[in-house]
C-alpha cells in the first residue's frame, strides 16, 4: 500500500504554489516527507448498500486514486443514519483481500470433490460446462433435481429469479430454516404479518424492554443498536433473559440467568401473571384479538412457582418483572430476536412472545411493534415464471398451502413440516437417498455450506454424490473448493445488484452501484445469472440486456430513475406505523384467517399442531457434557469475515467460554488450549478456554464463524473452533421447518497443542498486494 501511494510531486505550471518547507525541491519530495494520506487527494463518493451482514445499511463509499479508501454510513439512510458498524467499515479489506477468488475454476477431471485440484478457465467455458450438465440433469431427472442455495443480495438471482424461471421448487436460503423461520411462521399465524428483515420494534418509544436471548451489542445490527442505545438513554428499563451475561445483559437492570431451553416456561408464567392479576390490556385484547378465553384457561397451570422449578429463576422475580412490564404497558415490549432456531419448539416459543406482546397491548402502538409497510416498488415486467419462488427469506411468506403447477413437482421437503418455505437442511437428504425424489445438482451462491447447515459430515456425503456442484462466491471457503465449477463473483463494492426494498416505519428503497471496476476476472452475480440463464434456454426471462436497463426500468415504473437513485442512494417513502393510521383508512393490518390477532390459532389446531404454546423440556445434558451455545462478535459476521485483516486484528480467534468454577473443577488454566468433543464423537479445536463468571455452569459458549479449514484463507485458516462442526444434531421444528441447534453437547478435552500460527499483523503485511 505504501509503495503504491508514494508520489513524486509533479507540479504543472498552473499549480505553482509557494512551498514553505526548508530545502524542499519543487519536483522531488524531500526524504523526510511522509507518504500522503488518502484524504489529501481528490475523493469522490459513491452511494450504495453494504453486504457485510444482512441488515443492508446504506453506505457512502469514498474512492480516491481509483481505490476504495473508506466506507461511511449514508446520512439520509434510515438504516445507517450516517453511522456504520465495524464490519461495514472494514469492507475495504474484503475488496482488496489477496486471497479472493480471481478467475473461474474447473475441477480437474478425475479428481475427487474436496481434493482441491482446479484449473483456470474462461467464463465461456465455465458457464457452458455448467449449463450443459444442468440441462442433462433436467433431461434425466427433471428441473426439480437441481437445488439452489443462496444468501446475500445476489440471492434474488440465484434463489428466486433463476430457480423460478428454471422450474425448481428446491430453492432455499439458510436465513430461513437456520435462522428466522420460527419467528416468521409464528408471526404469520399470530399477527398475520411478517416480522421481516428489519425488525419493526419501536425501541426509542419504549419504556420497558425484555430481551429473550437477544444479543444486541454483539450482533450489532446498526440501526437496532442505535435505537437500543437511544432507548436506554431516554430511561427505558431493560431485562435480559440469557444463560450468559451478554453485552446486552451488562446494560440491563435485571439479568435473569435462565436455565437453557426453558424460556417458554418463563413466558407462559408471565402470561399467567398478566391474566390472573388482571394486568393485561383489556381494551386492546377485546378490540384486536381472538382466543383470549382459551388462553386464560390454558394459562392456569403456568404459575411462577411452577416456572421457578423449571427455569431456576425465583418466582418473586417472575412476578416482579410481569408487574413492571404491565406498569409500563403499552410501551413495554418483548422484541422478537432474529436467530430463533433453538430447541425444536421454537415456533411455539415465538407464539408465546407474541401473545405476551398482544396482552401488553403494544402491537401497532408506540413503544411496541410498529406496523412496517413495504415500499412501493414494481417488479421488472418479465413474462410470468412457471413457478413461484419458494425460498422465503427474512420476510418470506410462510402461511398456507402452496400450489404446485401442472408439470412440476412439489419441493423435496414438503410434508416434513407445516410452513410453506423451504428448509435448506431438509434438502440434503434427497441428495443422498433420492427420497422423495433425487436431487442431483446444486448451485450454491454465497452460502457457507460447512459453517451453516448442521451435520457437516452429512453435507459432505451429499456433495460427493451430486452430478454437478457449482459454487458462486467471493472467497475460497472450504466448501467452495469442493465444487466442480467455481464462479468468482466480485464484491459488493464492484457491482450493481437488485434494488432492496425495506419494510419500515418510513419504507425505503436502496440502490447498489459499483464504486470501482471488478478486480481480476470476477463478475457480478446478475451477469452470471443472466449468462447462465441464456445458456439454459431461459432467454425470455432476461429481456433486459444489462443491469442498468433492469434497474432503470423498475425505477421508471415508480416515477424515479437510475440516474436519480445514483445521486440519492436511498428513496424514502411514507409509512403507516401505528394502528390509528390504519383504522383511519379503514384498513385491517392483520392478515390472519380471523382478521384479528390470534392468541389461539385455529389453523394450528386444524393441522394437528398445538393451538396454544405449551412447555416441553429440552433434551437433557448428558453427564460430563455441556450444552453448546453460540452467538456473535460485533467485529465479525457469520463465517465470512475471518479473512478480513482489519477485523481479525481486533479479534483473531474465538474462545470457549466456560464457567470459572467448572474450569477449576476440571483443573484448567485461563487461556489453556483444549479440544471440544461432542456427544457424537466429533472433535473441534484446538481452542482457548476463557474461564469466566459470565455463564452458567451447565453450558459453554462459542462465537460463531471460526475454525476455518479452507487453506486458501490465509488469515482465517486454523484459528479457533467451529460451532457448526459440532452441531451434528438438530431437531426439526414441525411448524416452521427450523433446524434447532441448541441440542448439541460437548465435553472439554484438555491437552490440545498450541496452534503454530503467525500473528495476524505479520500475515497481513506478508500478504499485501
Amino acid at each position, binding site marked *: 500500500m505504501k509503495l503504491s501511494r508514494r508520489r513524486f510531486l509533479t507540479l504543472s505550471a498552473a499549480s505553482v504554489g509557494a512551498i514553505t518547507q526548508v530545502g524542499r525541491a519543487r519536483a522531488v519530495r524531500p526524504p523526510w516527507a511522509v507518504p500522503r*494520506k*488518502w*484524504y489529501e487527494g481528490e475523493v469522490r463518493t459513491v452511494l450504495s448498500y453494504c453486504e457485510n451482514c444482512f441488515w443492508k445499511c446504506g453506505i457512502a463509499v469514498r474512492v480516491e486514486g481509483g481505490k476504495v479508501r473508506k466506507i461511511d454510513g449514508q446520512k439520509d439512510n434510515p438504516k445507517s443514519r450516517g453511522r456504520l458498524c465495524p464490519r461495514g467499515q472494514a469492507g475495504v479489506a474484503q475488496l482488496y483481500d489477496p486471497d479472493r477468488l480471481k478467475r473461474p475454476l474447473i475441477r480437474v477431471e478425475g479428481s475427487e470433490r474436496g481434493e482441491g485440484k482446479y484449473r483456470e478457465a474462461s467464463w465461456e467455458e465455465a458457464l457452458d460446462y455448467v449449463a450443459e450438465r444442468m440441462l442433462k440433469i433436467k433431461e434425466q431427472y427433471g428441473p426439480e433435481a437441481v437445488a439452489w442455495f443462496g444468501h446475500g443480495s445476489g440471492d434474488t438471482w440465484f434463489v428466486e429469479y433463476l430457480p423460478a424461471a428454471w422450474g425448481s421448487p428446491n430453492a432455499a436460503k439458510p436465513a430461513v430454516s437456520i435462522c428466522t423461520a420460527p419467528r416468521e411462521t409464528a408471526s404469520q399465524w399470530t399477527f398475520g404479518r411478517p416480522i421481516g428483515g428489519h425488525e419493526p420494534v419501536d425501541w426509542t418509544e419504549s419504556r420497558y424492554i425484555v430481551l429473550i436471548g437477544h444479543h444486541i451489542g454483539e450482533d450489532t445490527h446498526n440501526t437496532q443498536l442505535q435505537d437500543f*442505545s437511544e432507548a436506554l438513554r431516554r430511561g427505558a428499563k431493560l431485562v435480559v433473559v440469557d444463560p450468559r*451475561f451478554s453485552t446486552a445483559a*451488562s446494560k440491563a437492570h435485571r439479568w435473569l440467568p435462565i436455565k437453557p431451553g426453558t424460556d417458554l416456561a418463563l413466558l407462559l408464567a408471565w402470561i399467567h401473571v398478566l391474566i390472573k392479576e388482571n394486568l393485561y390490556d383489556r381494551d386492546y385484547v377485546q378490540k384486536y384479538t381472538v382466543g383470549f378465553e382459551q388462553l386464560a384457561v390454558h394459562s392456569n397451570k403456568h404459575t411462577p412457582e411452577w416456572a421457578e422449578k423449571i427455569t431456576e429463576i425465583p418466582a418473586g422475580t417472575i412476578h416482579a418483572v410481569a408487574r413492571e412490564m404491565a406498569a409500563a404497558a403499552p410501551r413495554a415490549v418483548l422484541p422478537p430476536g432474529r436467530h430463533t432456531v433453538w430447541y425444536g419448539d421454537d415456533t411455539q416459543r415465538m407464539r408465546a412472545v407474541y401473545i405476551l406482546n398482544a396482552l401488553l397491548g403494544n402491537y401497532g402502538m408506540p413503544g411496541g411493534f410498529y406496523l412496517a409497510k413495504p415500499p412501493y416498488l414494481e417488479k421488472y415486467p418479465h413474462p410470468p415464471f412457471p413457478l413461484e419462488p419458494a425460498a422465503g427469506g427474512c420476510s418470506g411468506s410462510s402461511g398456507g398451502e402452496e400450489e404446485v403447477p401442472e408439470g412440476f413437482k412439489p419441493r423435496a421437503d414438503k410434508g416434513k413440516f407445516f410452513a410453506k418455505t423451504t428448509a435448506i437442511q431438509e434438502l440434503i437428504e434427497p441428495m443422498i437417498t433420492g427420497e422423495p425424489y433425487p436431487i442431483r445438482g446444486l448451485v450454491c451462491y454465497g452460502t457457507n455450506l460447512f459453517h451453516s447447515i448442521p451435520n457437516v459430515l452429512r453435507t459432505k456425503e451429499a456433495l460427493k454424490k451430486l452430478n454437478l456442484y457449482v459454487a458462486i462466491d467471493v472467497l475460497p471457503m472450504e466448501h467452495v473448493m469442493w465444487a466442480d465449477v467455481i464462479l468468482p463473483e466480485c464484491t459488493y463494492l464492484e457491482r450493481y445488484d437488485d434494488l432492496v426494498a425495506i419494510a419500515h416505519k418510513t419504507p425505503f428503497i436502496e440502490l447498489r452501484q459499483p464504486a470501482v471496476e471488478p478486480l481480476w476476472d470476477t463478475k457480478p452475480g446478475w451477469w452470471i445469472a443472466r449468462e447462465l440463464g441464456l445458456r439454459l434456454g431461459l432467454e425470455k426471462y432476461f429481456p433486459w440486456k444489462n443491469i442498468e436497463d433492469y434497474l432503470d426500468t423498475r425505477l421508471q415504473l415508480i416515477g424515479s430513475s437510475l440516474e436519480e437513485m445514483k445521486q440519492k442512494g436511498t428513496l424514502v417513502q411514507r409509512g403507516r406505523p401505528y394502528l390509528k393510521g390504519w383504522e383511519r383508512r379503514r384498513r385491517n393490518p392483520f392478515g390472519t384467517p380471523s382478521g384479528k390477532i390470534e392468541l389461539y390459532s385455529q389453523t394450528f389446531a386444524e393441522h394437528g399442531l398445538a393451538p396454544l404454546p405449551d412447555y416441553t423440556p429440552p433434551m437433557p445434558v448428558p453427564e460430563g457434557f455441556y450444552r453448546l451455545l453460540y452467538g456473535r462478535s460485533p467485529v465479525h459476521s457469520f463465517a465470512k469475515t475471518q479473512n478480513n485483516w482489519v477485523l481479525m486484528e481486533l479479534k483473531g480467534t474465538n474462545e470457549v467460554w466456560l464457567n470459572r468454577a467448572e474450569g477449576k473443577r476440571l483443573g484448567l488454566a485461563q487461556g489453556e488450549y483444549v479440544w471440544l468433543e461432542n456427544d457424537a464423537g466429533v472433535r473441534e479445536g484446538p481452542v482457548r478456554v476463557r474461564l469466566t463468571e459470565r455463564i452458567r455452569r451447565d453450558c459453554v459458549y462459542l462465537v460463531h464463524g471460526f475454525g476455518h479449514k479452507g487453506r486458501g484463507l490465509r488469515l482465517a485458516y486454523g484459528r479457533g473452533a467451529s460451532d457448526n462442526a459440532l452441531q451434528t444434531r438438530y431437531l426439526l421444528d414441525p411448524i416452521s421447518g427450523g433446524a434447532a441447534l441448541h441440542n448439541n453437547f460437548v465435553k472439554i478435552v484438555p491437552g490440545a497443542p498450541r496452534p503454530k500460527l503467525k500473528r495476524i499483523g505479520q500475515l497481513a503485511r506478508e500478504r499485501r498486494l
Partner: protein
Amino acid sequence: MARYAMVIDLEACVGCAACAVACVLENEVPPGHQRLWIRERELGRFPELTVEYRPEQCLHCERPPCVPVCPTGASYKSEDGLVLVRAERCIACGACIAACPYDARFMNPAGYVDKCTFCAHRVREGREPACVETCPTGCRVFGDLDDPESPIHAALERARRVDVLKPEQGTAPKLFYLNTPARTGLRDTGKEVDA
C-alpha cells in the same frame, strides 16, 4: 484558540469496535498496530456481574509527558489542544513511546511515531473524528472545552461520574470517561476477577 477534548459514556458503550475500524481506514493505520482499541473488563462473581467496555486511545493530555522528551520537537502540542507528531521531523528514537503512560503510541513502519490525532484533519474542517461520527451507540462526544456552546459541556454535566485514566500521573488527560460501570454499576463491589 480551541481546547479539543472528547467524552465517552461507558454506560452506553457496548465495545462493538466500530470506532477502532473506522480509525484504521480513515488514518491508514498499518497492520500490527492500533491507534484505538477496546478493553473489556469483567467484574464481580456470578450472578452479580458488571462488564465495562472501554475504548482507549491517545488522551491528548493538557500536560503530555510525550512532548518534552522529544529531541527534535516532532512531538508537540498544538494551539487547539491536540497532541500531534510532525512526522517529517521524527527520528524514530521512541522516547515519546517510552514516556506515554497509556500505551497510545507506536512506531509506524514508515519511520515515524504514530498515534490517535483526534482526526485533526477532519476536526479542523469542522467535522468530527471518524470514531465519533460512526459510533452506533452515540456514546462519544467531541468538542471544544473553551467553547461554551460545545455539546461536550452538557455531556460532562449530565454525567453521574467523570473519570480519567491514571490521574496520579498528573497528565490531565482530555479524554473523559463517563459513568464507568466499574464504579457505578457494581452492586457487589467485587474486585476484578483475574486468573
